């Protein structure tokens, strides 16, 4: 059996693959976004003066890093509905289950990344904000947060790429993402090389596009007066806290 380029090309450009890829991208992006928010919360709780809260943060990070992601996914999809009856209903789709799992799982890693990012911001920045009369919340939002974001972009980029590939795990709970689509097609014609190859190309393309976006974002965070325009329209929204 030789590599049949027409089957490869047909799979690559098929609607099913495109939809699978779209689901993978959406799942990864949504999970990354909610993981960043939860992770920020956990990182902040971890700096609380209250010992109980610090312990909660510690336990969270420990728990969700200790258990294999696949096991967490199977637990959410199969075990949670047994424990919580309302999850047996229609609305609890594989997508929701995967989003929930990946958000929580990834939030443990993001909490650690954000913790190191917060530690990297010079303490003098907070003092300078306070001496101007900014309140704690303003100091955090206007001064600490943008500098923290700059620090965590590379590590977060890593996380997003691995998250994108982790979405393939959701094939075991029948989410119709890229790997599920591929497996279904393989079951029909057994053209492993062509169909797996097409899926691999999709992942490579998505990751490549993402790498370019990340480079743009990093350039945006260089804070240079001679910087060429990065992503159009990004600066006023992200950096221009003053514009509010």
């Amino acid at each position: 059996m030789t590599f049949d380029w027409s089957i490869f090309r047909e799979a690559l450009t098929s609607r099913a693959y495109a939809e699978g890829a779209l689901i993978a991208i959406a799942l990864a992006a949504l999970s990354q976004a909610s993981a960043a928010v939860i992770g920020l919360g956990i990182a902040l709780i971890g700096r609380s003066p209250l010992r109980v809260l610090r312990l909660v943060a510690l336990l969270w990070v420990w728990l969700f890093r200790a258990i294999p992601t696949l096991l967490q996914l199977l637990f959410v999809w199969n075990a949670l509905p047994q424990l919580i009856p309302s999850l047996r209903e229609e609305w609890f789709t594989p997508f929701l289950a995967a989003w929930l799992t990946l958000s929580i799982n990834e939030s443990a890693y993001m909490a650690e990344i954000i913790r190191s990012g917060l530690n990297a911001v010079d303490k003098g920045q907070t003092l300078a904000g306070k001496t101007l009369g900014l309140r704690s919340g303003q100091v955090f939002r206007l001064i600490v947060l943008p500098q923290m974001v700059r620090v965590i972009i590379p590590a977060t980029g890593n996380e997003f790429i691995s998250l994108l590939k982790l979405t393939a795990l959701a094939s075991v709970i029948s989410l119709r993402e890229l790997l599920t689509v591929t497996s279904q097609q393989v079951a029909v014609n057994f053209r492993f090389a062509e169909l797996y190859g097409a899926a691999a190309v999709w992942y490579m393309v998505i990751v490549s596009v993402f790498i370019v976006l990340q480079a743009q974002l990093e350039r945006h965070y260089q804070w240079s007066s001679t910087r060429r325009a990065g992503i159009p329209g990004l600066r006023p929204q992200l950096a221009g806290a003053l514009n509010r």
Partner: protein
Amino acid sequence: MTVNTAPAAPIVVATGVRKHYGRLEVLRGVSMTVNRGEVKVVVGPSGSGKSTFLRCLGLLEQIDDGRIVLDAAEVSWLSHGDRRPRERDLARHRSEICMVFQHFNLFPHMTAVENVMVGPVHVRGTPKNRAREEALALLDRVRLAERANHYPHELSGGQQQRVAIARALAMRPKVMLFDEPTSALDAELVREVIDVMEELVRDGMTMIVVSHELRFAHEAADTIVMMADGEIIEEAPPGEFFTAPRHERTRQFLSIVE
């Protein structure tokens, strides 16, 4: 030395300020009265508590005992007391007694003009356009108008410190605190910062300056304060301080620094 024609009116009164870190007592009851328009230069060996005292005055540190009164209002709160002020009041008091730091602490993600604007816009609620105009005027005053749109890392140390001074001035503080403002600068950049500070002195700004720049102390200070081991051991006008120091520690210190 400047001639202060205004009648002596205290604007900062610190009484018996104590502060310790763990078992280390950094301030052992420091009292100081600063009059409106007065320039006080605080000197002393490192570890004498000068910077800690300044941070206490700037309300960036809680004190363990004593009180700090700013313009007739008590602004200090004790670390073990039950009268911790509301954050809003604390922030307002801080904005009236602005600090300039040894390492500038400019916000690296904002241009020079944005650094100067951020306080007025977010603390005073000044409209952005007006804040920008005022910030540009202040940058002009510290001779950095043409650097307004540069980021801190694109400026020299002396330029950064002048932006930091403009940033503090933008709050129209009642008192300005300077924590070794030229210690982190290369020798040839010290002068440009000192020049700006001397201009502030001429404009009548009330200033408390921790500095090893004895020439500035000589020319600009009304009073020089000598600290050692967490206490003020001598306080005198510059003429007297440099020519006839009373305290042995002061004589030692001057012989080393000069």
